């Protein structure tokens, strides 16, 4: 755990002076830092449309707020008794009916016309995501595929194409959300929901479950990567492969630990006898950008910490903490890190 904390502290130092700075100015400076999960850090077509809508509405809202409160201040503080009923009536009709009707009609027309966008059909690739407590089961179905490429806790998408998401949940309701790309969509047990996203800009973003789903709701996140289409195809092809065999002794010892501790009862590592379906598929865990659904990073230290202290990192998670020796933990981490 300490290890992980140290990593985080490094980041914190680089972004943020040690003492929390409390002025709005420093907030704006902060805006440039660590915004993989910001809806304003636009990288997708849908997010761009929504963000334009937001900025326009923000300017309008600020103006209207100033108008209403300014008028209030003026009539109550500076100009008592200067007006009569006729002015009041004009204010009531103009401000109460005409102005809002005009503004709202315009906004509504704009907003409604954006509504179907996120439901436009995809260009071919279908990604099925199932929300579990508290991780993501992911299947890629390229056009014409008969069986999926299975992964977990990471979403990769080709830039410039609309990808369709088919969403389900295992037990409780979750919500699938990559702010940089677009809006969110809830995931239900027993009812499939669908929507599409169109990334414009290659990059690494963060997604997170947005619907409260139990104890570790806070730690149900994932990394989303938008890649150039060719890169994506190559990546997907690699993901479809079976797991790489252990490359060295330490990895082999780690695989033995994995087998002896019964990890395969819950996890699948394709190409081995680990075929469990309860937990995330680990076939290529070494190549992923996060561990434990966005909880940590796939470093040797984090892997070892995770296996030894799951519950501390992710309260009430189903995976038990394993009381292993330091060597065993290191070997196991080495094995997992090698599953690239």
């Amino acid at each position, binding site marked *: 755990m300490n290890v992980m904390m140290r990593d985080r502290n490094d980041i914190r130092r680089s972004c943020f002076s040690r003492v929390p700075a409390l002025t709005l100015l420093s907030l704006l400076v902060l805006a440039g830092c660590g915004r993989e999960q910001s809806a304003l850090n636009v990288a997708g077509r849908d997010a761009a449309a929504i963000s334009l809508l937001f900025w326009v509405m923000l300017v309008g809202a600020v103006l209207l707020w100033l108008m209403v409160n300014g008028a209030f201040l003026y009539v109550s503080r500076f100009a008592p008794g200067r007006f009569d009923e006729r002015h009041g009536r004009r204010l009531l009709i103009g401000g109460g*009916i005409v102005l809002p009707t005009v503004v*709202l009609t315009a906004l*509504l*027309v704009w907003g*409604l*016309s954006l*509504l*179907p966008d996120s*439901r*436009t059909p995809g260009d071919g690739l279908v990604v099925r995501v199932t929300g579990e407590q508290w991780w993501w089961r992911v299947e890629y179905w390229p056009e014409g595929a008969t069986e999926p490429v299975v992964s977990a806790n990471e979403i990769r998408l080709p830039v410039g194409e609309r990808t369709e998401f088919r969403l389900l949940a295992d037990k409780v309701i979750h919500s699938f959300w990559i702010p940089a790309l677009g809006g969110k969509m809830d995931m239900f047990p027993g009812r499939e929901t669908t929507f599409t996203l169109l990334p414009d800009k290659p990059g690494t973003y963060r997604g997170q479950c947005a619907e409260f789903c139990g104890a570790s709701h806070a730690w149900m996140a994932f990394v989303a990567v938008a890649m150039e289409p060719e890169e994506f195809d190559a990546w997907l092809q690699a993901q479809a492969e079976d797991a790489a065999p252990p490359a060295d002794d330490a990895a082999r010892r780690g695989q033995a630990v994995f087998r002896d501790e019964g990890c395969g009862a819950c996890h699948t590592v394709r190409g081995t006898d680990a075929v469990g379906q309860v937990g995330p598929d680990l076939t290529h865990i070494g190549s992923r950008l996060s561990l434990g659904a966005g909880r940590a990073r796939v470093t040797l230290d984090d892997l070892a910490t995770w296996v030894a202290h799951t519950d501390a990192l992710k309260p009430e998670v189903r995976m038990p903490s394993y009381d292993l020796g330091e060597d065993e933990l290191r070997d196991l981490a080495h094995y997992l890190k090698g599953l690239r």
Partner: protein
Amino acid sequence: MTEERTPDRREDQKEFAEEEASLLKITLGPLIWAAHFVVCYGLVAVTCAKGWDIGAVRIGLGGLSALALAGVLWVGWAAWRQWGVTTTGDRVNRLGSAEDRHHFLGHAAFLLSIISLIGVVFVSLPLVLIGGCQ
């Protein structure tokens, strides 16, 4: 102030008989809005769930919207006449007399019909702007 008389113990029924039309008018605008809203939402929900023809339903609901608008306009016109601001010149109806009460109910119904009108127009917009069940 009204004439001196003995209040009737059936006062409620008498008043309701007298103001039944106005009470109806007050709630009629919003009720038309509500009925229009419920039918639009309910029919579209069932249509999309059961895979019926959404195009036809949109057209049908368009007709319903036109009817609802006509209804609200009629209520508004009747209420405007009941308010009678053009003849009395009284916009406030602040006295405790039967006439003021009657005009007030007209005024309130008139204003509610404006809101209902805007409401019906707004709720009809998705029918125009959004194509299918997507």
